[in-house]
């Protein structure tokens, strides 16, 4: 396909970028790593007059630890952090290993070298690995808009539908914060693709904490089955309040969670098969996360 012509802007400060976004409004798009926007342009699915390339804004690339008001350790990554940086950063691997593992499994090396966390969240593909992981990880998305107005949105409230979220046209993701996952926790990401490096048909993330041989906390999210990635609170609750907390019946609980999902036909797979995939990946993922957390005795 042939790209429609557009004007290219390369601001070097956040203020400059926000000014461009507010000047051009809906006729502008932010270019970060280009792994979603460029294909959309090339497929003529998006036609836009102004491209605001933010990769020359240094403040947007950073990885660091900080404490939240309650003194808990938080990982903050700048919006321009590349998947390959998440994958390799010792800080990320130690503080939020699920994030590092998720990043390592995205697409191919070339995609990971270019793609950014801010770009992936802003694109809001309901089956994207990072969108799904951000929900299980209770991520917070920190944004800034024209005039320097800042706000923080929880990942669970950020996504509104396929390729849509609560960002306004003149708003930019600045960074994303993740609570560090402490000792005694285990994680798992399981996905099903039709080809290595493809977007997942279904992706599941699980994060479990085991204390004294008992499941103390669990977060489960699933992508690819609805308009946004979903957190499966009912299943989490069922696992925590199982009749015998030492031996929750993971298969039954995740099976029930899968059967209660609203799944529509996908051009690539039928709805019943997708449900089967969801059930399989949920069971495998939850079992792996609990196992990695030390297992329930």
């Amino acid at each position, binding site marked *: 396909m042939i790209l429609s012509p557009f004007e290219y802007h390369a601001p070097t400060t956040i203020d400059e970028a926000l000014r461009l976004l507010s000047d051009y409004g809906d006729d502008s798009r932010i270019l970060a790593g280009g792994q979603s926007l460029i294909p959309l342009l090339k497929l003529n699915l998006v036609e836009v007059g102004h491209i605001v390339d933010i990769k020359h804004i240094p403040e947007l690339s950073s990885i660091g630890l900080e404490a939240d008001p309650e003194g808990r350790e938080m990982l903050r990554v700048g919006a321009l952090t590349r998947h390959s940086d998440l994958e390799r950063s010792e800080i990320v691997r130690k503080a939020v290993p699920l994030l590092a593992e998720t990043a390592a499994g995205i697409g191919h090396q070339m995609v990971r070298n270019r793609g950014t966390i801010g770009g992936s969240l802003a694109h809001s593909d309901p089956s994207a690995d990072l969108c799904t992981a951000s929900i299980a990880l209770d991520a917070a998305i920190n944004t800034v808009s024209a005039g320097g107005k800042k706000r923080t949105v929880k990942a669970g409230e950020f996504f509104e539908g396929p390729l849509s979220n609560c960002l306004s046209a003149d708003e930019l993701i600045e960074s994303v914060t993740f609570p560090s996952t402490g000792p005694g926790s285990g994680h798992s990401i399981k996905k*099903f693709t*039709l*080809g290595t490096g493809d977007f997942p048909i279904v992706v599941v993330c699980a994060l479990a904490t085991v204390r004294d041989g008992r499941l103390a906390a669990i977060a489960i999210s699933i992508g690819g089955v609805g308009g946004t990635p979903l957190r499966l609170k009912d299943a989490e609750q069922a696992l925590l309040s199982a009749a015998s907390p030492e031996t929750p019946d993971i298969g039954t609980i995740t099976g029930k969670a899968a059967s209660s999902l609203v799944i529509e036909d996908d051009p690539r797979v039928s709805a019943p*098969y997708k449900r*089967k995939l969801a059930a399989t990946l949920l069971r495998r993922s939850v079992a792996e996360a609990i196992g990695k957390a030390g297992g329930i005795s």
Partner: protein
Amino acid sequence: MDALERATGVARYAADWKKKDMLYARIITSTVPNGRVVEIDKSGASGTEGVVDVVTCFDDRTIWHAGEREHERRLFTDRVRFVGDCIGAVAARTRMAAQKGSEAVRARYEEYQATFTIESSLREGAPKVWDDGNVLKTRNYGYGDVEEAFGACSVIVEGEYETARVHNSQLEPAASLAWWEGDRLTVVAATQSIFGCRNGIARDLGIPADNVRVITKYKGGGFGNKADSMNYDLIAAILARRTGRPVMVEYSRSDEFTSVHGRWSSRQKLRLGCDQSGNVLALEVNAMCDIGAYTRRIKPFNFVDGAQSYYSCRAFRGEDAGVYTNTPATGHMRAPSGPQSCFASETIMDEAAFRLGIDPLQFRLRNMVRVAHNSETLTSNGLEECLRAGAEAFGWKERRNAGAVAAETSTGAGVAIAAWHSRLGRGEAAVSLTRDGRIVVRTGVVDIGTGAKTTMAVIASRNTGMPIESVDVEWGDTEGSPYSVGESGSRTTAFTGTAVKAASTALRGRILEKASGISGIAPGSLEIRNGAVLNAGRKLLAVEDVAETLESELVEKAATEPALPKGTERLSFAAHFAEVEVDSETGAVRVLKYVAAHDSGPIVNSLTATSQVHGGVIMGMGMALTEQLLISDYDGSVLNGSFMLYRLPNIKQTPDIQAIFINTDDPFGPKSLGEITLVPVAAAIGNAIFNATGVRLRRTPFTPERVAAGIEGKRSESLPGAR
């Protein structure tokens, strides 16, 4: 020979060419699947900035003869037969303007009922794709008395098999640049056959072939969909004539999927009969193939072909038909009729072996074709060695699953064999020694990705005695290159290679004569090795020294056309072994190990031959596991015309593939290789899945969903030990 220039971007493919004042063209395509164009409003296009010319079916009535096998196909048609049928083209100063212009053309149609499947095309009163009906019958083929042979069978297996429509998916999309100088036309084409392309263009445009020059210096693959003249070559030529400027036609990837043909799908009923000890006595094949709205003009051979050549059965009967539908065209793709046939026949053989309780490898060793095929003697046959050497390298016994099922995954091994034509035919070459001591090979060949340039250089090097570093290959231009039939049918090494060998051998003789004149030693006592003229093992002088004495280039030309003696047949053979791992819940299949043993006669260059095997096996894996051109049941259009949705296997899904060559001593030299590498793959993988899971898959591709459904069905049957 050309790896560096290809890898560094120096190689100039058709789309890389630029000419002063050149225009870009886009095709205008039908939006209805079956009907007639009543009116075309060009004003939107003519009013688009940058648009220079708009041509439609009402302006130009050129027939594209290579576009359809049985009927006349118009280049720009008013009688549209699928969504995507070409009704016109726009030429503009920029690509974007051509694109916008083509989108701005408005056509009004008289719409007819349409048919998108074999069933609906065969139904009584079905919508007609062509006025003379929807079925294209081919010859029935076979030998022996099938009914009598089935009467003698104690085990008869029957099955229905389907292969999906797949696409050539070569990396280089279609591109063609044409310009006129007076009445002389030059076309820089992305063709597999410069002479076929030239002759086709000349015929379609009604001009002498001598007035057409076709240049193709580099080719990014074709796998059969760029032989002969293509419509985009003609469109470029016609627009160039109309505008008086060079015109480049380029296809996008989605144009490729819709507007250039892929492989026809097949639906086959097979019946196989054996005696109690497992000897195959009779095989019968009945096939229907969905050939789309057009099937490219090809030699009138069958749509499903090959199974009759693998086994020594007493009787064989084959019958096939192509069925026209209002869907994109089909045509040549690497062994056009082979993989469909092999998938069905090699699956039913596996089913028979299982029914008889015979190991599939032993079953094939027992039944494979040996000395004679039908009534014809084979020139050479290394099939048994392929089976034995392949099984040994693969570890057949250890990798076969004897019945173990793990909770999440299970593994299994499968085998399939194949044969493919290995024809002989016309080849031409000129090989010369230049005054600076280099060997120049001139042929009409185009390197479509097989490494033919290297192969020709290797042949010239071996037969002249010159080091390969001293050999240059010049080709790819109808002006200056000797004739070639074109790079299709796995025949380049056999056809042109034979001529290169003859010319090189003759040239060596001429060089020795010259050396004899200088040294005074009889030519018979001289030899050339590594660029030096030797006498009794001692270097007398360098070939360069001989070259220096030349007044002009020393040229030897050869035109060869070896023929097979009557009553003989020449086939290449293969035995492929696959090991798979199957996820018993998701149905995902991973190929763990692959061994491909081939009898293609003496191998000229093992590096390029091995690459051919790797490429063919990967292409076969695509057919087996992921590839399927999805056709809309609403309007017959292509639903997945991009590499995002049409899934080719990628490198991470590709296992270790081991190629083994049985260098049989065929009296006519190298046999075919390129096509057969793909033929047995789907069957080998399907048979391995059966061994792993007990699920018999009779329909390609083996998508995870289909495999999972099979496993679920198996569970509900709860047949113990069903494998």
